[in-house]
């Protein structure tokens, strides 16, 4: 029987560790961690993280659901995979951090998180065009903070944008698209539906 996601009334709920084990890619390797810290020590951006990967793993095992899903460690990961290749126990640390980030979004822990905003702008481009339109993703991300902040951020990067335009490295004109955007959207919708179905199945059982 699958473990339901614990509610947050209990600060420590071992059910959370089991839930991560069952629902996050790589989560089944968590029990292998010996807390050596090679992951956090290898992290290029560890100083910007509230906990870092080593402590995050310990907190998962302790069942600290809310602290884990609100941790900025999930949002500062650059996907450099140094922790993954250096882990002496072969734990796919990056996958776990990224998988938790995806779960935090779907569970509503991350609506205002900057990385999450960027991810939404990115996914908007993917679902509409089948491709990343770097220009529109950036603009949509900037303006997700509101009109004034969007203009401010845009102006702050004006020189970079102009350089790219001058060198022919910013696409101008209509976005590049796949030919069957309808088919691609149908695939993505179906995949989301299957993912939701699996999730529901696990929670019901």
């Amino acid at each position, binding site marked *: 029987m699958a473990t339901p996601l614990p509610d947050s009334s209990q600060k420590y709920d071992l059910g959370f560790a089991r839930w991560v084990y069952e629902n996050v890619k790589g989560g089944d390797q968590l029990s292998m961690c010996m807390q050596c810290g090679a992951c956090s020590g290898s992290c290029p951006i560890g100083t910007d993280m509230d906990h870092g990967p080593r402590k995050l793993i310990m907190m998962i095992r302790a069942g600290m659901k809310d602290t884990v899903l609100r941790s900025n460690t999930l949002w500062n990961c650059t*996907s450099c995979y*140094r922790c993954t290749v250096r882990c002496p126990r072969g734990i796919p640390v990056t996958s776990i951090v990224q998988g938790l980030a995806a779960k935090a979004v779907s569970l509503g822990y991350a609506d205002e998180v900057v990385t999450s905003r*960027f991810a939404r702008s990115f996914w908007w481009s993917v679902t509409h065009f089948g491709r990343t339109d770097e220009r529109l993703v950036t603009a949509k991300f900037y303006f997700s903070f509101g009109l004034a902040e969007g203009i401010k951020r845009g102006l702050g990067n004006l020189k970079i944008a102009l350089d790219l335009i001058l060198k022919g490295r910013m696409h101008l004109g209509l976005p590049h698209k796949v030919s069957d955007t309808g088919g691609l959207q149908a695939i993505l919708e179906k995949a989301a539906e299957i993912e939701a179905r699996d999730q529901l199945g696990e929670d019901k059982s």
Partner: protein
Amino acid sequence: MNSKDARKKYVYYPGCSSQGSSKHLDESLRAIIPELGLEMEELDDWNCCGASVGNIGGGPLPTTALTGRNLAKAETQHATDVITGCAACYLNTHGANERIKADVALQNKVNESLAVADLSYEASLQVRHACEVIVNEVGIDKIKERVTQPLDGLKVAGYVGCQTVRPFANTESGGNYDTFDDPEFLDQFAEACGAEAVDFNVKTSCCGGSISVISPEKTLHLIKEILQAAEDAGADVISTPCPLCQTNVEMYQAEINKKFGTDFNLPVVFYSQLMAKAFGLDGRKDAGLHRNTVRSEKLDILVQNA
């Protein structure tokens, strides 16, 4: 045709940055690959790989389904191998392909999704990074043989970055082509082209990846260290295989100079641009060297044709 005689058929997946910020990687790869004796045709109607944040924006299965669509299309082109020059495209496409191959349940879910567009993926393909193919299938000697205009006197800092080698370079499915922490292939490429590879000890440091796009204030110091190490090593140019590394390390130099009081003006190029030049190809049309925004005298000489 006898299977022994069957040649590998490469289908080329350019990725989204090929139509924007990394046009010069795409142009130079298309120029050098035939010169190295490989044939490739473009993946038909390819879509985005999901990049670094697809999992977060769309969820894990939809992101895997994106790759499934690309691979299903590649199979209809009768490919044996998919080749890409982009680090993120490689990470996502190779990673998803290996997961699909190892997990029938996942393959079924991907195919259930693809079926709505009359596609399916039989998990028959290998997904490979262009650098791995050049190391394993072409070989350094072949690069040397092809060089007609050696890049004499050019000092190159080979900046590999992360996802080109991590986590797959040192794995069987990744072709075992180099190490995670101290890869040598970029230096070998530069030297095969007649340039000098300088001793550069941050070759696999992270440029901040997409965090440098989202929140550069958190990662400018990472890029500064890369630039500083290259400058200290006396490099004329930084050479990289990764689209995001190229853009981040190049574009943020002005902001880094402002923030840290430094004076960096170091061109950042793709290894494939250098190769195109060393092969005697056109500095603009083939090497795309007019597209790099940070310019130096040496780069301006390089872009000109002899």
